[in-house]
């Protein structure tokens, strides 16, 4: 029944002809191009401004590319820029942020992962009530809890120290991270957990030997989420630390928005870019995992 394929076909055949420059494509790619440029522009502005000298900035506008590239603003932003009376640049803030971020991330992920594991696999009576409160806590405006935490930190002697801020970040990272881990552990096949129990493994045995090795992607997601979140925090930094212990975002704001002296826009932009560098690096390197992290916030329990 198969016609010999030499039978020449007449009329339309093969793929429907499409113009590369159809109106739809021009509209689609044109819109996307404009939007992409719009979103990319501020990053471009930051970079070009930070590479210009002040005289050049005064002559041109924010978008003009640098004629003479100078790294002086970066050096100044890092080590000399002034906030009020002290002129140590952003370096102090950077190291403070490092000292805050690393222990906070480790501590919060440790606590939240064990918590999520307990909620997913070892449910006890009342566990869900605490979990619900915890999730609601994520929606309470931080402002409501600011002062009570000041009192708590003062009582345990951590107010104004890096340690205090680490504790605060651990507390406020708990709802979203616990949710993240609980959902992930729940999604693992229950048979795995049951098999391990039949084999005689206990709470910690299963956690360390089965759950953790199987969950490296979610640990990475949690890490990305926490590093960017904690690095970018401003409110807790400004409330719970002092001038010596300010994280980078607070130092940055103080440098740029300090009223003394002449505004050095190039130094300001270099400082801004420096502060944004850590999360940007994480973002560009991690790609899809970053998206998964923020989408995790939207996944309902």
């Amino acid at each position: 029944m198969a016609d010999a394929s030499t039978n020449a076909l007449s009329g339309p055949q093969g793929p429907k002809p499409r113009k590369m420059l159809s109106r739809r494509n021009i509209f689609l790619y044109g819109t996307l191009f404009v939007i992409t440029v719009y979103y990319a522009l501020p990053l471009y502005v930051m970079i070009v401004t930070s590479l210009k000298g002040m005289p050049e900035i005064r002559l041109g506008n924010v978008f003009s590319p640098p004629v003479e590239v100078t790294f002086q603003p970066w050096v100044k932003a890092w080590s000399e820029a002034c906030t009020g009376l002290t002129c140590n640049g952003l370096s102090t803030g950077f190291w403070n942020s490092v000292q805050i971020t690393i222990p906070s991330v480790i501590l919060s992920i440790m606590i939240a992962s064990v918590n999520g594991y307990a909620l997913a696999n070892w449910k006890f009576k009342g566990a869900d009530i605490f979990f619900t409160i915890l999730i609601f806590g994520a929606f309470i405006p931080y402002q409501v809890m600011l002062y009570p935490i000041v009192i708590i930190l003062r009582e345990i002697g951590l107010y104004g120290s890096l340690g205090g801020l680490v504790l605060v970040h651990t507390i406020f990272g708990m709802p979203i991270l616990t949710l993240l881990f609980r959902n992930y552990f729940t999604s693992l096949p229950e048979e795995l957990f049951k098999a391990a129990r039949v084999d005689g493994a206990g709470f910690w045995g299963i956690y360390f030997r089965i759950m953790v090795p199987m969950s490296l992607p979610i640990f990475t997601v949690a890490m990305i989420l926490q590093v960017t979140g904690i690095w970018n925090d401003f409110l807790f930094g400004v409330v719970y630390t002092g001038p010596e212990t300010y994280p980078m975002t607070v130092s940055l704001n103080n440098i740029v928005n300090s009223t003394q002296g002449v505004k050095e826009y190039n130094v300001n932009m270099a400082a801004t870019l420096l502060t944004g560098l850590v999360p940007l690096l994480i973002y560009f390197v991690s790609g899809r995992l970053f998206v998964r992290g923020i989408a995790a916030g939207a996944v309902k329990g």
Partner: protein
Amino acid sequence: MNTMNNSVEIKNLDLQFGAVKVLQDLNLDIGKGEFLVLLGSSGCGKSTLLNCIAGLLDVTAGQIHINDTNVTWTEPSERGIGMVFQSYALYPQMTVEGNLSFGLKNAKLPKAEIAKRVKHASEILQIEPLLKRKPAALSGGQRQRVAIGRALVRDVDVFLFDEPLSNLDAKLRADLRVEIKRLHQRLENTMIYVTHDQIEAMTLADRIAIMRGGQIMQLGSPDDIYGRPVNKYVAGFIGSPSMNFFDGAIKGGAFTTGDLTIPLTGYDFASGGAVDGPATLGIRPEHVVTGELVDNAPVKVDVGVELIEPTGSDKLIDCQVAGRHFRVRMDGQADVAVGQKLRIGFDPGRASLFDAATEERL
């Protein structure tokens, strides 16, 4: 050519995704009012072909004609087709009535006409009491009925079904299968039906097209495909439990495998006569006889029962013939026990012979 009697014609169809050839030089004519089933395992291109016919996929080369019109470049909605999907694909936020009428409203049909068609379709499918409900409040079977209704109201000549029953449980599947067959008898329009379930294919089809690797292996009536499979793949694919195969050779009008020699008198060779050479013999488990019937069978073998699988209506017996694993279907009431000696027989006239190298029917 008999173009006037064909509802759907597919000519030299190719489809490629990048470097992957999904459909290759495919030709298929489907008659008016015919029920054609595209059958094959997953990845054989059957759903892809259906999507091409619907216009949901752009073809790489070739043509598609529906009702004597070249529709290769035509939008799906203007091809004169209705389609039913595996996941039902109902619009979840609309009532059943909304689902049935949305396309018609969009085509700016007069209200009275829409109402008439919705009423007609819901009568045929017996979904009138459900018209005000939303899909979420329906059972799987009801949802699929609504999905069929959505194709029905379009008042078209060709219906396309893409594995419509695969999401249903076994009992519902059997019920809806019968309903679809009734629907076809009543409406008498062309239906193209994709499935991987051979029972569905055998029970519904006027003709079955067995597909593999983007090509049609065999196109024929269910009897044809069951009785005279064109190659070893089709023979093994159709029939459950599947065919018993013996590797051996034809020599002087008989087939020899191990210590067993089977005379081929009565076998209808596709190519005229027996040619000596290596071959494969296939015997369906249900074509093996036991008890008194063995006396009349041209071939008789003594076997030992190794395993029994009762299914209620039948008993499947596992044994060894000529050193090969062999299955026999017996009556459900048959009195057999493991270890027992059993005499079985079969008629080579009902067997299938394939060339060992090409696997084509001899």
